[in-house]
């Protein structure tokens, strides 16, 4: 009880302090400095109409590479921590025919939708992460529905690695071709798609990177789900 009251007092004071500082950052005012630059130059410099995407993939590419890495760490870490010699799916009951059939029917749709999201990342509010997450959702649905469903680790793990390698390689090609790591050689050197800004084939390497990220995120999240949902077999420590 004392703890709770004390906690409330503490956080209120801390909150007041943060609020006092935030008060000096007026809400809704245009304070853009670098942001404005992005909005003004995003089309010519990256070919993307979604400025967020351009920021994510081009201007702040290092962040995104890092972000991909973070998720990779999570997937690896989860696999490392939940690693058991013998693990098996052991859902107790299967979903009813409604659920299983629903899963069968929805699976291709959700996957396609995931692909739609990541390939249109430079045009719509999407990208590799939501796309990949959507794809992982499809697999999650399968895990939730079927008792014995399990993804093929022989394919998923290398795929995860290869997608990452692909990303780094695209960046390294930029280094070799344009002199800078993560340089958008497709847009800036090759000039592919300069004439169709706002259409699908534009924005340089963004769709490629988002495809790679989509695959990577999809496989990673699926891997995390797989590891968390499985249980070690009796005695199989």
């Amino acid at each position: 009880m004392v703890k709770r009251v004390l906690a409330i007092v503490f956080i209120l004071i801390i909150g007041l302090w943060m609020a006092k500082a935030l008060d000096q950052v007026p809400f809704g005012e245009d304070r853009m400095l670098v942001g404005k630059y992005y909005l003004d130059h995003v089309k010519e410099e990256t070919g993307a109409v979604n400025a967020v995407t351009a920021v994510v993939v081009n201007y702040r590419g290092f962040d995104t590479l890092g972000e991909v890495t973070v998720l990779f760490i999570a997937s690896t870490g989860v696999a490392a921590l939940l690693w058991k010699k013998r693990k098996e799916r052991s859902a107790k009951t299967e979903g009813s025919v409604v659920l299983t059939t629903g899963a069968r029917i929805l699976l291709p749709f959700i996957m396609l939708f995931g692909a739609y999201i990541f390939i249109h990342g430079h045009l719509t509010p999407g990208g590799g992460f939501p796309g990949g997450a959507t794809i992982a959702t499809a697999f999650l649905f399968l895990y939730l529905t079927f008792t014995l469903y399990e993804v093929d680790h022989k394919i998923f793990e290398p795929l995860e690695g290869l997608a990452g390698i692909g990303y780094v390689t695209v960046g390294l090609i930029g280094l070799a071709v344009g002199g800078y790591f993560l340089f958008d050689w497709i847009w800036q050197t090759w000039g592919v798609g300069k004439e169709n800004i706002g259409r699908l084939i534009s924005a340089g390497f963004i769709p490629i990177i988002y495809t790679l990220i989509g695959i990577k995120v999809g496989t990673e999240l699926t891997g995390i789900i797989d590891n968390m949902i499985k249980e070690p077999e009796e005695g199989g420590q």
Partner: protein
Amino acid sequence: MNPYYFASIALILIGFYAILAKRNVLKMLVGLSIMETGVNLLLISVGYVSGKSAPILTEGITPNNAVDPIPQALVLTAIVIGVATTAMALSVVINLYEKYKTLNVEEIRRLRG
């Protein structure tokens, strides 16, 4: 204080409260997630410009009526990092529960001193 900032801070504090006051480790982790959510909302709020729309330059949106794209990009990253942290934390807790057979934070203290 405008409602978005208020809500962000409130979320951060609620999350923090959960960490400080809840004994169940899972609830503490939920608190952590709530904090992260609050922070993300804060970032987005900081980048908002009144009367302007999402910085996707289609459908009549020009650089002059779009909001700041940076905080949005940051939040995308922050969300993923939050997910990763949560996933890590959960697998830690799974292992912990397997070994300690409890989620009460006051009983998880073999390491001390």
